[in-house]
């Protein structure tokens, strides 16, 4: 079983976590064409490479981010969501 290092709880078995999918730019719902809004809702990118994903530590209901290599399944690093906001 894979280990995932939670920024708050440390390394834990991955079955304690729930994936919430890659971080995506959220289009402005009031200024987006129907077609683009539908794509936003129903099209999931699945390109090879490194993605930043939302993860939840279920027992503590803590959401954080993980950088993961989709080819090797290597988790490169995990970090608190505040870092994403600071970067933005």
């Amino acid at each position: 079983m894979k280990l995932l290092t939670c920024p708050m709880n440390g390394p834990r078995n991955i079955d304690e976590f729930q994936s919430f999918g890659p971080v995506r730019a959220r289009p402005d719902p009031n200024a987006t064409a129907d077609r683009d809004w539908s794509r936003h809702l129903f099209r999931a990118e699945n390109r090879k490479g490194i993605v930043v994903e939302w993860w939840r530590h279920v027992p503590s209901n803590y959401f954080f981010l993980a950088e993961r290599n989709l080819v090797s399944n290597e988790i490169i690093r995990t970090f608190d969501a505040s870092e994403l906001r600071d970067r933005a």
Partner: protein
Amino acid sequence: MNRLPAPFGSRIDRSRPIRFSFEGKPFEGYGGDSIASALAASGQWVLSRSFKYHRPRGILSMTGADANALVQLPSEPNAAAERTPISEGLRVSAQNVNGSLERDRDAIMDRFGRFLPVGFYYRTFMGPRRDSWLKFWEPIIRRKAGLGVVDTKAPHRHFDKTHLHCDVLVVGAGPAGLSAAIAAADAGADVVLCDENPEVGGVLSYDRYDPAVLPGLSSRLEALPNLRLLTGTVCNGWYEDNWLALIQGNRLHRTRAREVILATGAIEQPAVFRNNDLPGIMLGGAAQRLIRHYGVRPGDSAVVLAAHDDGYRTALDLLDASVSVVELVDPRSAGVTSPLEAELRGKGVAIRKGATIEAAEGTAGNRHLARVRVGGSWIACDLLTVSIGSAPAWQLPCQAGGKVGYDAATQMMTITLPEGPVHLAGAVAGTDEIEDAIASGRRAASAALSRLGHAVADEPPAASPKVARPRYVQPIVADPKGRDFVDFDEDLQVKDLQNATKEGYREIELVKRFTTVGMGPSQGRHSALATARIVAEATGRTVGEIGITTARPPVGPETLGVLAGHHEALERRTALHARHVALNAAMKPVGAWWRPYYYGNASSAEAAVREEILAVREGVGLLDVSTLGKLEIRGPDAGEFLDRLYTMAHANQPVGRVRYCLMLNEMGSVIDDGVAYRMAEDQFYVTATTGAVARVYADMLFWNAEWRLRVDVLNLTGAFSGLNVTGPKARQVLQALESDIDFSRDAFSYLSGREGMVAGVPVRVMRIGFTGELSYELHCPSSLAPELWNAVMAAGRPHGLRPYGLEASRILRLEKGHILIGQDTDAITTPDELGFGWAVSKKKPFFVGKRSIEMRARLGQTRKLVGLQFPAGARNIPGESCLVLRNSAPAGQITSVGYSPSLERHIALAYVHVEDQAEGSLVTVKCRDGELVRAPVVAHAFFDPTNARQEI
């Protein structure tokens, strides 16, 4: 009896005779005997019939990996006879037998083999009709094929799981594993050493080596308190980040190791020639295991096939076990010598070089080996041991990311692991001699220790500079008469694999799927290397290019019990559970929760539900609503937060007011509802449906991980309990209780909330009405809920208060047309379809799902949830999920249906075509039996359509 005197038989206890039966015949063995060894000791060599041709089969490897030696126990199919210990009175029978093992009616299949070519199934069982496979062929094949029989009445057994953590896990306690574990423990690491056998030593426990080596290693084990030894433990899988499944009997050790050393050894490979599957033909290691572990003499007169020193040692062992060795056949050229040759010749054994076993013949019915052909002449014998080389046990290393290669110079299969926390030691890493294996174990330990940050005391010994001698490669040529088996499990012969390549299946994965090679219980242990060589030869490529098929967990079969473990169904009980039970409630599971369905005996269930409903409508009722989700949202942005999550306006909601809340997902579908009570400017108490609260709680924090609003969400679902006091007399009941809350109509209006004390219990009270009657929902800390329940019950007694259950609650809300999320909604339900336009703010710039419901409204609404009522006394009432038709095509379905005692007829909620939503429209519903019934649409609540009662 074929028993040898001590010291042969290290596993058996001759003072402990055990009686058991095989195929109905009595047998006797000793404590420590496996089924196969005890049978062999009594001369019973045939253990099973083969899968396809029903040929007699017996001991091949003594490792428990083959289908050959699978037997049926009373409550366990496919037990490995070579590993399963005998016990007093155990009833063992043979598998894959039609009639008896001795006289198998299907043995005739052996003669028809040429009509069963590889791929036969795919080609033959397709016709003549489309459903012929399911209707005709499959039942026949199921009867013919398959191995053991599952006993559906098998008694329950105890299984459990443990968690095991260590610095270094060493898999395999042979010379390499032992030395690795000792070296790692010596350095202070926390070490676990596991081995599937009952003793340590691996090859040292049965092969002919210096007898001082094993005690020299094993005596160290006990002196190391930081080394845990798990014998009889199979490592059945490597998973990511060094998580391994160790199975010890009925216990699964879920193991996390920082470093893993795989010392899984090598797997002896059988030779391929005509009739190579006869009982009496076994691997050299099997003969040695029989002799040393069980004190069983494997035959009277033996021929030894030896393309490796192992075979020479086997020959010497056979002599020690007073088996006469007729001849040792070494297929290598005369120039290749073994250091043991002289010793063997000295004991009068004839050694023939440059020859091999060309074919074997059996006794009547092929029940045992009778003679073998070498160089064109036949030699009579009842035992042939085969030692032509081995393959590294690749399963675990490959699961851990190892790549299998082939060294053309040495003709050996090789395994390379990526740099990381998994290391190989011993024969699996290609070592040949015992000293090399021991050194390799120490090297692996050093590598693991340095990764763990331990100071490695001395320089690890360098890899042996000695170049391994090239291995013998048996030329595999199809015998013109066949029966030269490559895969014993699946009865596959050389020509079957060659034919697969002729059919165009050139890749090993395709050859496997076409022929089923390697799919049997031994999972290619004895066939993968030969298959790779045959495919390489047939397609003009190298063995390295062909490779082997992907190895995945589990390494060997595992029982469902081990996977399930010690399982208790999770159940949740409210704080009032004992109260319900004391009141004779019929408790039923609703998801994980147990809830009262009604109060009373099953015989009077209908009457009880009816009385409970009438109590609420005419007097007062009490419902335990503790399973409701309860969330507290606190912080300066709490109003804004709810505004974004729910469709109604909450930021402007006055303190002390309660508002309905409706939650959508991003595609605009309804996913939850509840009420929000604003307790303070910066504090809301929000309910969610029982089934959705876990998800709502997660979603709230997920959204806020992005929004970063200044709020905090607390899940109080378990911490708080809820009691709903409902009915025209509800106010009188509450006013009879000691409280600082004014329950009068003017002071506490509909959709208000109050905090205070009731009967000495701190409560949050909301005036809401799921039943449509005057209702107060009292929420309090769960620890005090029983106290509050008692107080309400006592205060309600003069007013005829009656606790009511889920069934009455379901009907009460149905009479009001109130929806249940998940029951009356599905994945695409919009607020418009529910007629909930009133619950969707038109002013808010944003809430989750807003954009999508606007877009979906433009696409046009196709259905509407409405009430349907059926005539009183109607004979056929459709059930939930029955289709609503429009012009004979499905337009919707019934979502809830029930009998309303207040209206004395059946009522339902249903999706109908959007054009049928008007009051009085007649819609057609298809009942379960196919009958079409008509029912009029009711556009408002069935009961009290003006909602006057809840606001009194």
